[in-house]
């Protein structure tokens, strides 16, 4: 076996913040007061000082520097978390988002004072329309799930405007949990439908459930098995015929840029995850951005305010959309995330984005091809941006997906997404993205093959993993049983 385990090295200890604090310290200095002191009345002023630990500047720096070293990011190594598109987050995007002329603009500055901001938003909307084949967009939704909610609200508003109330929505069993949850927020009852034997949804299945009480379908394309929903055009026809709309979860758009125009194949509403496809960093849990895009006939329903081009030139914000679903966030969405996505799109151009998709698919298929002899591949067809294995072949040795995941850490890799999608028991969902090199893929494949061997020959070693990390497996059951959520 040529694959080398990661090394173990010095890892600094670090207590909880409040164990470090010491009254009398402060990490900020103040100028001399230049205005008189004015006390707040006793009935509103706190009588005690808030219980926030006091640290000097260097304490804060060391605390967070040390914590950071306990983390693994894309910059650390390959992060093939399926459905998350953990591609490289370009540093130049950070530079652009950090420009004072973007970061330090107040959202209520008069239009004349934010023309650059508005232009960027306007152009980004246009770009995203071009990439998806949709007609109009809003950058307001704050994440993917929020984009879904916006989409569902649009469906709801469109139905209302037609005087209709529908109660159901079709959602395939491969869908991300956010899909049914978003639908439910709008009062739609999800109707789960099973994908067919080849992992995609069959038009027939939809035909059987689509009716006049169904608002439409929420479908992820490519789906979470990494497969293209090849019957989508037909599905769209079926749904449309019954007066429903087609919502596409576009979180996996990284497979299809410049390859498939979602608008052309019948999708009415779609959201994108800028923090996946468009390279903005995930930040250990967000902020992302989940723009929602629609066909022309749904444009009146988009969230307000909208960015508009003024006839007299320049850009503006407008609330004048009476059919709008309303406002989704306090201001206009995660603008600074949008700056990063814009920076990414401008850096790649049309050909670059298309190539990103092609290489993402190449990488996923390479992994599929090189691992399928040792890991069970439930759907052995060419995949798009990700491939889904299962732990079936390891079960005889009592080694499961969780063990494979933990053992990968010892080899210096972030584990794939595990136990999702739910349709594959013990699924191992690998999305390498286009920014991984062949050598890195080969090392990953080698690690996966080694683990499969270890599972057979020395399962205890795999059960004991990870052994290189500063903590071993954590007791999640105990954490949930007796929640300790604050110190």
């Amino acid at each position: 076996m040529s694959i080398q385990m990661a090394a173990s090295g010095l890892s600094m200890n670090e207590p909880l913040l409040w164990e470090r604090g010491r009254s009398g310290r402060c990490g900020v200095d103040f100028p001399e007061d230049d205005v008189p002191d004015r006390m707040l009345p006793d009935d509103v002023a706190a009588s005690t000082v808030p219980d926030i630990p006091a640290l000097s500047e260097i304490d804060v720096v060391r605390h967070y520097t040390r914590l950071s070293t306990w983390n693994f990011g894309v910059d650390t190594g390959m992060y093939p978390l399926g459905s998350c598109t953990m591609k490289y987050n370009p540093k130049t995007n950070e530079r652009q988002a950090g420009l004072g002329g973007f970061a330090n603009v107040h959202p209520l500055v008069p239009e004349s004072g934010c023309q650059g901001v508005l232009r960027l938003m306007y152009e980004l909307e246009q770009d995203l329309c071009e990439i998806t084949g949709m007609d109009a967009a809003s950058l307001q939704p704050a994440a993917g799930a929020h984009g879904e909610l916006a989409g569902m609200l649009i469906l709801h508003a469109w139905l209302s405007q037609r005087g209709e109330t529908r109660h159901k929505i079709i959602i395939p069993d491969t869908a991300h949990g956010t899909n049914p949850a978003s639908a439910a927020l709008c009062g739609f009852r999800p109707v789960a439908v099973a994908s067919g034997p080849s992992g995609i949804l069959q038009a027939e299945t939809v035909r059987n459930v689509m009716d006049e009480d169904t608002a439409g379908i929420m479908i992820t394309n490519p789906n979470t098995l990494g497969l293209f929903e090849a019957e989508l055009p037909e599905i769209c026809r079926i749904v449309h015929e019954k007066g429903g709309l087609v919502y596409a979860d576009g979180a996996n758009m990284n497979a299809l840029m410049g390859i498939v125009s979602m608008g052309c194949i019948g999708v009415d509403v779609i959201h994108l995850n800028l923090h996946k496809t468009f390279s903005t960093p995930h930040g250990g849990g967000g902020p992302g951005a989940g723009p929602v895009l629609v066909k022309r006939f749904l444009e009146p329903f988009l969230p307000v305010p909208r960015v508009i081009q003024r006839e007299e030139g320049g850009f503006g914000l407008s609330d004048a959309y009476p059919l709008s679903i309303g406002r989704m966030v306090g201001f206009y969405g995660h603008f600074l995330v949008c700056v990063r996505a814009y920076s990414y799109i401008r850096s790649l151009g049309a050909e670059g984005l298309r190539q990103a998709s092609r290489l993402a698919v190449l990488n996923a298929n390479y992994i599929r091809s090189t691992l399928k002899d040792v890991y069970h591949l439930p759907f052995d067809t060419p995949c798009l941006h990700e491939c889904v294995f299962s732990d079936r072949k390891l079960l005889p040795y009592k080694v499961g997906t969780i063990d494979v995941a933990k053992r990968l850490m010892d080899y210096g890799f972030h584990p794939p997404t595990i136990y999702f999608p739910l349709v594959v028991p013990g699924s191992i969902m690998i999305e390498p993205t286009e920014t991984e090199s062949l050598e890195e893929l080969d090392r990953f494949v080698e690690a996966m093959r080694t683990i499969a061997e270890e599972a057979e020959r020395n399962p205890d070693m795999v059960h004991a993993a990870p052994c290189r990390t500063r903590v071993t497996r954590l007791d999640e059951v105990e954490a949930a049983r007796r929640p300790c959520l604050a110190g």
Partner: protein
Amino acid sequence: MRYFPHTEEDIRRMLETIGVESLDALFSGVPPDCRSSGSMNLPDPLCEWELDRKMDEMAGQNAAVPNLTLLLGAGRYHHHIPSIVPALANRSEFLTAYTPYQPEISQGTLQAIYEYQTLAARLMGMDVVTASHYDGATALAESLLMAVRKTGKSTVVVSRAIHPHFRQVIQTYLKPTGFVVVEAGFTDEGTTDLTGIDWTDAAALAVQSPNFFGCVEPLSRHADAAHGTGALLVASFTEALSLGILKNPGSQGADIVAGEGQSFGLPMGFGGPGLGMLGARQDLVRTLPGRLIGKTRDRNGNPGFVLTLATREQHIRREKATSNICSNNGHCALTAAIYLATLGAEGLVRMARTNHNKAAYLAEKLQEIGMPLVFSAPFFNEFVVQAPPRFEAVRRTLMEKGILAGLSIQTHYPELDNPYLFCATETVSRAEIDRFLAEVKP
């Protein structure tokens, strides 16, 4: 393209391994009628220095602090961000990680967010605070849904002194499911007026403090009123820094607190991303939306942290989840924690007090030149004055002089007489305030 590591040779070898002829052949699963015909119509790609230039230019078209003297808040506040805050938050191990699903290699994020939850809970006077929400407005909207779920009632009473945008978001969230929003007015003091409210089926009373007018609400009284009818009190805020010197909402009876944390080290960024801070009393934990991080132990008995109580969440419960939220604004929560750690108790109090002093100074001086305060309740760093008719014209010319002062809130509150909302923070010097005053003095 510098982001792609594939050499021609790599691609050839990989295709061979996969057993297809070409990159295009990889898409055999995409039916021909689904393929795009032409290529996308996007501007030509820019190399990094061209991009820098373009972005510099676009950024240069906006009026931004510090070139702008800002006497305006209304939901976004210009506070100094200590240089260590972004320097630490942007360590790539934090920035380029996903949600910490794999705790063994995510302890950095996990401990940091656990600490955030703790600090935020202390500040808000809550037992539990989530790992973050998108922003204050969505946090507030979701907390009303929480109240509805918890109480089984379907009306919410919402103060008109809540930020108008927040109220709009509440509408967006509540409308499709038919929950009723009852609006409460405000008194001459500038705080929420509950007289005459119909509390039938009320799940919650939502107020903001300091409210949109900058006035501090009598939360204890509101709590009594709400609790008396079986409704929960949901307290919101847009200016998190006020938590540094005001009585915390929990101590005054709030059941849920949902506000905006942008003031804690986040740039204004044209309004986003911010930080939705959402906390609740212990008994509401299992109805909270979004992620929670909890303390536990590893196999060797060492302490560590994990995402927990996932059974509330969409990836387990799907349509029965407490919310659809998945990615939140975790990095903003991390940033807020670093900010709070930097200030510490003493710094936070001093910072808050400085804000109040600057605003009080501005208010006094405006009063002297004929712009009286509209409301009499105590305020933190924002307040509403009644401006003379000619003020709007002066205000416009000030923009050219690099001053953005006050916001007309007339359209939101037609019953007031030429009302302007002002704000002053620690970053504005007396000299700047005086310069502004000299410009507007009649």
